[in-house]
């Protein structure tokens, strides 16, 4: 089956899109710095090295099978007819990007953008599993993510798949909308992070024998905050390129995308700083940084559709959510997630997806320039809910199963005894700061 292709782009639009895509590596750098800063100094070099390796593994795996299975509207795909409706469920392209003309066309730009953004999804679990994930295992797990899970779900949303066509097939608004990747990148990465936290268990010394969590603070707040600033232009590029390539908005609308991205991050960091100031007496830098990234993650889905005031509101809610969910997951669910990746990317991303359903009129105006009826407006929220249900009901158990099998053959966790010396010494043979750091458990009480 060949889905309807999107319209061709003018040369100016292509140049603009390439520019946005070239901003994407800044998001990778930002996330890598945040992950490193939030881990302890004994694992800092390992964290950065792992970031490089997973970005490499993600790009390679995606090059081999990823884009072929993700596909793009206009390329061939596997589909089935269910009760008279066509369900496209997997791309049917050639492996190794064969047959993709790397000439500035929409398809080639989508392939380039995805080669980079799949690395962003792969960096998310790295923050959650910091200090205890073997280098080889995280590369293999990333390869599974980039070769199978990510392209499968991305095909459904961006490749002309069944989620994208919920509108035309079942009258649910305009189908599942996710312009910049709140679902395909952030929630898929966040749920993979949750999977890894479950499989690896908490870091040594994180929980007392009674199950009470202790503080294992990150080693460099400056890295974390600088990483947040670096992530902003990367996210603007991600959202703008995604809006052009996957939502098909006109190039002029990328100004709105950039404004919305900034406002969502701004609202989120202000909400997180205010709430932590109220709760703890002083604003918490780490949670404020989490709020900033959560705002970015939530902004992606609706960045091309919602008005700026709505983007600010989306950010405020995302920032507020993250301050509570980070503590709740750590204390009540026993999830040791040093970077808060599950809260930031999974919870923030899900909120961003649902927020699109709250502003269906804006989405319709952006994409069709026409008013939509009341049932269609309700249908948009339903389409977004079906997307979230797919993430929780398919992506999460599927990712868990893949990583569980991988864990049976290649144990993914660094031996707990070796954690005392840090992942740097165990995996790399040398620390990040050999002259300054003494490897003691100064923060661990157990």
């Amino acid at each position: 089956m060949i889905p309807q292709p999107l319209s061709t782009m003018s040369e100016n639009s292509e140049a603009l899109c390439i520019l946005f895509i070239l901003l994407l590596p800044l998001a990778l750098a930002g996330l890598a710095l945040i992950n490193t800063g939030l881990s302890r100094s004994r694992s800092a070099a390992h964290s950065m090295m792992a970031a490089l390796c997973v970005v490499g593994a993600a790009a390679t795996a995606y090059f081999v099978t990823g884009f072929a299975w993700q596909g793009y509207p206009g390329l061939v795909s596997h589909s089935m007819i269910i009760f008279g409706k066509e369900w496209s469920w997997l791309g049917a392209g050639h492996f190794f990007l064969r047959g993709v003309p790397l000439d500035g066309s929409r398809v080639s730009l989508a392939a380039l953008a995805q080669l980079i953004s799949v690395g962003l999804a792969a960096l998310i679990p790295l923050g959650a599993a910091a200090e205890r994930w073997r280098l080889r295992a995280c590369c293999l797990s990333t390869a599974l993510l980039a070769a199978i899970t990510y392209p499968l779900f991305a095909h459904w949303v961006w490749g002309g798949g069944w989620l994208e066509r919920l509108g035309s097939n079942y009258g649910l608004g305009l189908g599942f909308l996710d312009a910049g990747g709140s679902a395909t990148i952030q929630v898929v990465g966040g749920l993979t992070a949750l999977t890894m936290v479950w499989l690896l268990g908490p870091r040594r010394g994180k929980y007392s024998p009674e199950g009470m969590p202790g503080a294992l603070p990150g080693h460099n707040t400056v890295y974390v905050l600088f990483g947040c600033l670096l992530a902003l232009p990367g996210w603007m590029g991600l959202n703008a390129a995604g809006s052009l390539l996957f939502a098909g908005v006109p190039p002029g609308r990328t100004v709105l995308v950039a404004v919305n991205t900034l406002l969502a991050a701004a609202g989120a960091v202000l909400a997180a700083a205010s709430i932590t100031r109220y709760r703890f007496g002083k604003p918490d830098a780490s949670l404020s940084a989490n709020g900033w990234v959560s705002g970015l993650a939530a902004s992606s889905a609706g960045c091309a559709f919602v008005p700026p005031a709505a983007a600010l509101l989306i950010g405020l809610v995302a920032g507020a959510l993250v301050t509570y969910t980070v503590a709740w997951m750590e204390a009540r669910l026993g999830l040791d997630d040093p970077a808060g990746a599950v809260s930031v990317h999974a919870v923030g991303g899900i909120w961003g997806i649902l927020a699109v359903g709250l502003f269906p009129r804006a989405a319709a105006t952006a994409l069709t320039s026409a008013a939509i009826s009341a049932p269609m407006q309700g249908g948009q929220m339903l389409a977004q809910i079906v997307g979230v249900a797919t993430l929780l009901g398919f992506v999460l158990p599927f990712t868990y199963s893949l990583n569980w099998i991988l864990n049976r053959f290649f144990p993914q966790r660094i031996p707990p005894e070796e954690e005392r010396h840090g992942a740097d010494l165990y995996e790399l043979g040398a620390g990040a700061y050999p002259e300054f750091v003494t490897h003691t458990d100064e923060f661990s009480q157990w």
Partner: protein
Amino acid sequence: MKITGLLMMPAGWFLVLAALVLLRTYVAQVSFIAAGIGVEILGLVLFTRAHWVAKGGSE
């Protein structure tokens, strides 16, 4: 409990898909999709409880 939770998540998702494919009225679709999400959340809760770090600091 872990396997039950793991299986309940896709079971809820299939309910959501079935609602899309089989039901025509908006109210019926919303009801079945809500039920499907409920099953997914129940599975997620079960699965999370199975992973809960027991008092004693280990699984």
